[in-house]
């Protein structure tokens, strides 16, 4: 397996990054002006990378499919960003953040990368504040923190429920400054259609102007892919409608290995689907589980009454409710990690206890928290004899201060008032830990082609902790890539401008044009969405929260059938040389269909349960942990990196063995 070298620097873990930075090559400022870098994506990873590379002096070309770089999907992140600042003096440290992330990822990530992430996390906060990012502050004027997802310290920085927006606008402003100076050339409403490799190195891309349809060639000395995650392979997810895998998939087909495609995060608290017309799902931040209690009725007759509309949830007595997380996991209760909470909701709904018409919803109830906060508040304001109604009033105010914007968002969508009746929630696809395989330098298996942010597989193992995707995106773009890419580019100072008049560019352009022509001329009978929805259903039913051998085999077969029909019968109206949103979607769904099959194959291959990947064949047989996920470190302690061989079913597996020198492997227990 000589092909898979993670290039982890020597030395103790805490010195690796510093030593590496001291030892790698740098490009002198005069030479940087002679070097072009393409960055695909303007989310936190791509935006921060483009700005930093331009500040260093490289000529950057930036691409995004939205009408403005500011609209990348990162904008939607709600909860917060982690950093080991230890401002709360609660014992946080680089090591603790490193440890929590490796453990949270169920011991399936690369130690050296995660340590570096924890190490640079503090710089991110300093950088963002210097840019004018308005993080939440305390009355003394210092930065505030909140706690997140089951860890024992308060290390999450936030800007109300809009942390992603504020961080992305920070990166966008840094980009804007460089665009104004001409150091970044911005190509918005442009889609990368393929990667061009010349002499074994990534040397450019083919793009399509989404307004005019024009196909163009762009050359560079290195290409960075920061195109986000592939959660939309499920059709329904919390991702933005345009989020897609195409850029990552295109480089995969040109030689970049794709790692752990089956590692997907299904987030437990999202608004349930309401009908067949549903186009996306909306997240309700994890922070709500600090105060909300999750339950379903104990008795089937109550479930039926609720569904029939003859009973309201508030009418069900406490003893007739099943607070199933508190029952099953007394130590962590409602605050178990995301994967555990999601599977438990599915278990109850599969058993028939779902509380809405579709049978796929559980309650997230704030009534106890309202009473508890109300009583505390009554004492503080010296109203010891406050009536129950008064206590409720006071309690609701406290809840509003904490979660007001989320409650309002919920009410707008469902028309239910969550202060009066419990929220209905259900798990939904949210984030993909898998992605393009990269080494310690974030370089893929194609020389000169890098992957950053959610598009790569690097830091979260089999399960991502809350508030750490934003951290990783900005770490990659601000603090890792700008150094590591220099090491590679130092060999390119004499190359000069890369020509786009070469056989390699000709061929890549030809392939892109043929595919686009095919779609327009196919004149089938079914829309792109028709196929996307079918793919999504197979993925959700058989490659979703709970997976088994038979289902996974069936899934791969069914996806192949859909793929065949898609190529025969897809209907793409409109023309080639104009804004054509169906044409854009067609290309993306074609790639999702291939990725979906590799996804199922990877899930089948990994016959263990770890993090977000749950195999029904791999559960604890007895004892206290009976029925819980069972990891298999003897056989599966590796990252699965797949090499494209012409068809997903022929993909070849390469294993990167993971070694744990600084953290002891343990079972995750939340009982």
């Amino acid at each position, binding site marked *: 397996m000589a092909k898979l070298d993670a290039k982890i620097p020597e030395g103790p873990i805490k010195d690796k990054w510093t030593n590496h930075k001291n030892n790698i090559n740098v490009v002198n400022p005069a030479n940087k002006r002679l070097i072009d870098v393409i960055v695909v994506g303007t989310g936190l990873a791509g935006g921060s990378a483009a700005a930093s590379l331009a500040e260093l002096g490289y000529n950057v070309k930036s691409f995004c499919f939205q009408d403005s770089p500011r609209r990348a999907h990162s904008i939607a992140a709600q909860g917060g960003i982690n950093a080991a600042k230890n401002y709360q003096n609660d014992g946080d440290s680089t090591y603790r953040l490193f440890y929590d992330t490796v453990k949270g990822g169920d011991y399936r990530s690369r130690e050296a990368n995660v340590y570096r992430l924890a190490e640079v996390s503090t710089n991110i906060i300093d950088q963002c504040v210097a840019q004018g990012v308005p993080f939440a502050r305390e009355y003394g004027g210092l930065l505030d923190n909140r706690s997140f997802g089951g860890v024992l310290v308060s290390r999450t920085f936030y800007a109300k429920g809009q942390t*992603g927006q504020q961080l992305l606008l920070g990166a966008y402003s840094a980009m804007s400054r460089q665009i104004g100076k001409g150091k970044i050339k911005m190509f918005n409403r442009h889609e990368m259609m393929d990667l061009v490799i010349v002499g074994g190195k990534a040397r450019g891309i083919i793009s399509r102007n989404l307004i005019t349809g024009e196909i163009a060639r762009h050359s560079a000395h290195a290409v960075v892919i920061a195109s986000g995650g592939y959660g939309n392979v499920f059709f329904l997810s919390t991702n933005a409608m345009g989020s897609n895998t195409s850029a990552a998939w295109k480089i995969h087909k040109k030689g970049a290995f794709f790692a752990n495609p089956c590692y997907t995060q299904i987030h437990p608290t999202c608004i349930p689907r309401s009908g067949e017309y549903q186009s996306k799902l909306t997240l309700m931040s994890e922070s709500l589980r600090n105060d909300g209690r999750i339950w379903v009725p104990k008795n089937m007759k109550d479930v039926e009454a609720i569904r029939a509309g003859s009973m309201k949830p508030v009418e069900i007595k406490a003893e007739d409710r099943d607070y199933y997380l508190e029952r099953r996991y007394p130590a962590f209760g409602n605050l178990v990690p995301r994967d555990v909470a999601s599977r438990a909701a599915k278990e109850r709904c599969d058993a028939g206890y779902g509380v809405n018409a579709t049978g796929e919803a559980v309650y997230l109830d704030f009534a106890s928290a309202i009473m508890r906060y109300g009583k505390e508040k009554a004492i503080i304001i010296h109203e010891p004899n406050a009536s129950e109604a008064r206590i409720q009033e006071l309690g609701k105010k406290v809840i509003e201060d904490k979660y007001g914007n989320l409650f309002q968002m919920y009410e*707008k969508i469902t028309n239910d008032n969550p202060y009066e009746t419990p929220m209905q929630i259900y798990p939904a696809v949210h984030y993909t830990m898998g992605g393009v395989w990269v080494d310690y330098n974030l370089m893929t298996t194609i020389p000169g082609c890098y992957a950053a942010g959610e598009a790569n597989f690097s830091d979260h193992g089999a399960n991502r902790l809350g508030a750490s995707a934003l951290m990783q995106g900005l770490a990659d773009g601000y603090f890792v890539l700008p150094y590591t890419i220099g090491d590679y580019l130092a060999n390119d100072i004499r190359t000069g401008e890369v020509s786009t008049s070469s056989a390699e560019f000709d061929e890549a352009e030809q392939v892109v044009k043929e595919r686009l022509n095919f779609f327009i001329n196919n004149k089938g009978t079914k829309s792109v969405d028709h196929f996307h929805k079918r793919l999504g259903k197979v993925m959700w039913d058989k490659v979703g929260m709970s997976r088994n051998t038979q289902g996974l085999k069936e899934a791969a077969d069914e996806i192949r059938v859909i793929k065949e029909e898609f190529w025969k019968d897809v209907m793409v109206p409109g023309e080639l040389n104009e804004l054509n949103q169906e044409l854009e979607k067609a290309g993306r769904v074609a790639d999702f269909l291939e990725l979906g099959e590799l996804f199922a194959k990877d899930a089948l291959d990994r016959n263990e349960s770890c993090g977000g990947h749950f195999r029904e064949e791999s559960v604890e047989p007895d004892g206290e942990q009976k029925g819980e996920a069972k990891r298999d470190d003897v056989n599966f302690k590796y990252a699965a990196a797949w090499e494209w061989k012409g068809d997903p079913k022929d993909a070849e597996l390469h294993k990167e063995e993971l070694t744990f020198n600084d953290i002891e492997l343990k079972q995750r227990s939340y009982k």
Partner: protein
Amino acid sequence: MTENGMNLTLKVWRQKSDKDKGQIETYQVKDISEHMSFLEMMDTMNEQLITAGKEPVAFDHDCREGICGSCSLFINGEAHGPDRGVTTCQLHMRKFKDGDTIYIEPWRSKAFPVIKDLVVDRTGFDRIMNAGGFISVNTSGNTQDANSIPIPKDDADHAFDAATCIGCGACVATCKNASAMLFVSAKVSQLALLPQGKIEAKDRVLNMVGQMDAEGFGSCTNTGACEVECPKGISLDNIARMNREFMSASITSDK
């Protein structure tokens, strides 16, 4: 109303390209659930068009949760439609009733030319940002510790409120002068309120306002319509603050 939902008549702006004149087309949709979002209703209409072999209506959208600022429809004469404090994608069909006729048009402003159907070109906003919507700080691992500059909570909160602008352009679309003052003032205010942003405050306001004028946005006559339609509740106070910043910068600038 059928048992499956509402029947609606849609009057939709169709325009092949920026060179085309454009016109209203009429479409019927049926069985629209009140729980659908407005854009899901548009999806239903488009699916119907595609199945009939026609071209679907182009419109901008991405996050569908009110934060990316992509969606931008003028519905029955109002930017983002009849509800308040929401973007088009957050508008739900329960705001309409069976038998309604709904007019759906793009943002209309000289500075936002139509690209196709309901999609407009808002890159003028980006160019205003490129002219000065930033603090000039390079990326480095050596910026000072984030807590070394305490910021009064009130200032931080006001800066945050201004910073929640999503750049959707509803303010421009709604203003009879097509002024971009609310958008520009939100960014100017955010940065002027923070100590980090004060150093460049003068140049920033002059450059951003200069670019705003160059883009062909109209002037502000204080009608206040923008604040009403702004989905993020960006306050007119920001415009007042920007006017003060601009005045003092114009007087004292050495440019």
